[in-house]
């Protein structure tokens, strides 16, 4: 019984919590999980569209930058070279430098590939230098394709430049070759923002950084540091049209999309940190997490409340059952929960009261059985009335019996033998007494006293008593025959008398016996004492009562101790 209340408490709580968790949290988990899953896919598709659109927008801006320079250059190669156009072309070229800030140098080459004019922001201008440029890749490239974009070169290992050459419609128009400072793309590229922190950058064909909002990354021209960007580009190229995840130079994981610019073969890439891009998903996950925690807390609270509602009545019931079990049948379980618990408590209370009744009855039976035949005890119990045991005066038949020669036997025999003989003897007597619904009042040594018609009234007590005496004789004589064979010389005599006697419970609080008091008791006792072996001596009252049914032999009247006159004695023949 060590802490019987604690263990079920925690176990019930756990059961309830599991059940409620399954009911509340699992659906939440499923809902949240599917929301996150579908949200992720939707967001991924949305980001794909957004980043692709931003990449196209950025590419258009970069392309505008390049085309702006090209458009400026086109003006310088619209007329064929002649000797008188020199000054006008010089003004045009200076104006071009003014218009196109990114152009650092411009040289104009005539149809023969000779440099006719060179203007520069930094270096000295040259007029009619006549240098042969016909073998330069820019001039050859422009002649064959009309427009030629040179590779990106980094001046002093730092500043990105590109040569753009453009040829006129006719070969006589010559070629314009411009050196373009690509740092000017910074203004274009830094104006592009994707979301809050997303940005765009440009890689040239070999994968070198040409433009980036942080111009110092471009100027550093660090190809090793730029490798993640090339990896990122490769990832996008592997799945064209899809945004791809990768890392930027700072190691941030980004989602990026790309558009190629034809002609220069540059890649314009827009990127957005994945943490920002998937911000809404993360927010949804946080919400789901919060709901999960709230759900779990609610489940725990409900489980606690329900358990408390269960455990209180259960404890009361348990305690009540324990007390009833321990014999407190007057204990009542008080529960007013108006549910199954209350019904159960009522049942327990009913059980307790029935147990009380049953125990009282069994106590009484065991009390009665001490001196009544079991049938009589049961009868008294059934009637529920033990007033039959109250003292009163009633006509009874008193039967005494004892063994002849027992004292001599008991001196001679071993105690075990004596006990065995007495056990057999009383077993036989008891069986007979019970069979005749008589009452074994007491036995001492080899003698016993039996009462008929008290405490329970029976019909024709005299006849019943004589028949019983006969049965006694027969039973005991059988035993005697057996004992004689064992060389125990014993006999058995019975005496009975009928008459009024006072019967009832006699004794102290601790020891209570049912007995009869009156001269009839003495008479029966004396008759027994004077009976020989196998003899049943009967007084006159009994004899008169049974004369018609039992053959009797009238013996000589005997003088018995305690009786003044000789008493008529009859012997029942059986």
């Amino acid at each position, binding site marked *: 019984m060590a802490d019987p209340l604690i263990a079920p408490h925690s176990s019930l709580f756990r059961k309830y919590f599991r059940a409620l968790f399954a009911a509340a949290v699992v659906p939440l988990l499923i809902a949240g999980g599917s929301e996150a899953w579908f949200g992720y896919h939707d967001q991924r598709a949305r980001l794909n569209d957004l980043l692709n659109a931003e990449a196209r927008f950025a590419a258009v801006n970069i392309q505008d930058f390049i085309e702006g320079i090209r458009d400026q250059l086109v003006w310088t190669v619209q007329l064929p070279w002649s000797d008188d156009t020199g000054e006008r072309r*010089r*003004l045009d070229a200076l104006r071009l430098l*003014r218009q196109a800030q990114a152009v650092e140098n411009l040289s104009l080459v005539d149809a023969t590939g000779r440099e006719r004019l060179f203007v520069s*922001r*930094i*270096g000295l201008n040259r007029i009619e230098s006549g240098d042969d440029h016909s073998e330069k890749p820019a001039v050859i490239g422009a002649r064959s394709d009309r427009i030629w974009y040179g590779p990106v070169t980094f001046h002093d290992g730092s500043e990105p430049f590109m040569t753009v050459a453009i040829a006129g419609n006719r070969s006589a128009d010559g070629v314009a070759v411009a050196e373009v400072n690509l740092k000017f793309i910074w203004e274009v590229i830094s104006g592009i923002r994707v979301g809050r922190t997303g940005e765009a950058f440009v890689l040239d064909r070999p994968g070198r950084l040409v433009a980036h909002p942080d111009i110092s990354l471009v100027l550093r021209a660090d190809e090793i540091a730029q490798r993640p960007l090339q990896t990122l580009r490769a990832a996008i190229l592997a799945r064209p049209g899809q945004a791809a995840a990768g890392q930027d130079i700072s190691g941030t994981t980004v989602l990026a999309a790309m558009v190629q610019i034809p002609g220069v073969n540059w890649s314009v890439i827009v990127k957005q940190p994945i943490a920002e891009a998937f911000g809404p998903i993360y927010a949804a996950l946080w919400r789901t997490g919060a709901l999960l925690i709230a759900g779990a807390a609610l489940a725990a609270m409900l489980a606690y409340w329900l358990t408390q509602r269960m455990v209180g009545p259960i404890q009361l019931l348990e305690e009540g059952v324990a007390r009833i079990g321990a014999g407190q049948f007057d204990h009542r379980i008080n529960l007013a929960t108006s549910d199954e618990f209350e019904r159960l408590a009522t049942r327990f209370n009913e059980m307790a009261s029935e147990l009380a009744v049953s125990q009282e009855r069994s106590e009484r039976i065991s009390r009665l059985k001490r001196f009544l035949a079991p049938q009589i005890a049961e009868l008294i119990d059934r009637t529920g009335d033990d007033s039959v045991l109250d003292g009163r005066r009633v006509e009874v038949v008193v039967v005494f019996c004892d063994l002849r020669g027992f004292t001599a036997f008991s001196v001679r025999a071993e105690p075990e033998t004596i006990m065995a003989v007495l056990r057999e003897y009383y077993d036989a007597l008891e069986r007979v007494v019970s069979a005749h619904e008589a009452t074994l009042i007491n036995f001492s040594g080899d003698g016993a006293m039996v009462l008929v018609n008290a405490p329970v009234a029976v019909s024709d007590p005299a006849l019943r008593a004589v028949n019983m005496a006969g049965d006694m004789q027969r039973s005991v004589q059988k035993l005697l025959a057996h004992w004689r064979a064992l060389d125990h010389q014993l006999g058995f005599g019975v005496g009975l008398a009928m008459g009024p006697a006072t019967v009832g419970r006699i004794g102290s609080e601790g020891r209570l016996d049912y007995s009869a008091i009156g001269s009839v008791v003495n008479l029966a006792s004396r008759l027994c004492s004077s009976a020989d072996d196998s003899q049943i001596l009967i007084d006159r009252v009994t004899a008169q009562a049974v004369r018609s049914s039992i053959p009797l032999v009238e013996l000589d009247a005997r003088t018995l101790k305690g009786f003044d006159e000789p008493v008529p004695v009859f012997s029942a023949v059986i």
Partner: protein
Amino acid sequence: MRRRDFIALVGSAMAWMTPAGAQTMPVIGYLGSETPERYSSRLNAFRSGLAEAGYAEGRNVAIEFRWAEGQYSRLPALATDLASRQINVLVAAGGAEVALAAKSATATIPIVFEMGGDPIALGVVDSLSRPGGNLTGVSSLSVEVSRKRLEFMREVRPGTNVFAVAINPTSPTSHSQLKNLRAAADSLGVELVVLKASNEQEFDNMFTTVHETHAGGLVFSSDPYFAYRSQQLAALAVRHAVPAMTQSRDFPLAGGLMSYGGDFAQSHRHTGIYAGRILKGEKPADLPVQRVTKVELFINLKSANALGISLPPSILSSADGVIE
């Protein structure tokens, strides 16, 4: 509100509550070769660059200034003095002398320089893309374009073949500039009169020599000493009626004829941005030396008229700023 924003808000609120001058505020040491007055337009540009990087003097950054007041010999001592203080970054702006003085004063405190000329040739850094060490900065194109000034002057004064050039012999770039100018004079087919001036007393004499040699104009080599004295030089040019050209737009603004040089507003602004980025934790070694992208031609039409010069269309169409 996002958590990061919230933390930032709390952080800025705490910064706001901290009393001014608390030790948490970073300190910029600023080394200048002249006086705050001569630097004022450059300081404005520097401060706007700092603001672009998120810093404002007195609010979240303190600036310690040291001025050499034109005496370059004082620069090393001033630089050492700054380096011995608890400064987070040393800004050495306004010339190679300042950058070199800062470089020799400390090898640990990050230095952001602003200068004309080639930082590699002058030994300030080893590489533009990876400056290494504790220096980075901005280089203007003024020194490279000295010869362009001679070309412009020749264009404005087509009738003459003799031009005077002003050189400050104490400048670390004077040799290379003179060499460039001589080569340019050769290819332009003009003669040079080289005038040397390293202090203000020599200025007056310089302008009278222009007249004496019948030079068509006076072209100043790129030198901070001249650039900071644009107003003084412009006044002298007006007084002596000499067509002259310097690197700084301050000169035509003050009445001189022309200027051609790197955009100092851009270069000083970038210096401010770099100082801010270093305060935010970037290393100078990771910040490449930037060269300004813009070279600007300023002309003063009023001065041209006063000098009786009619500016050719090539100049007028090329000008970034025309003062009328």
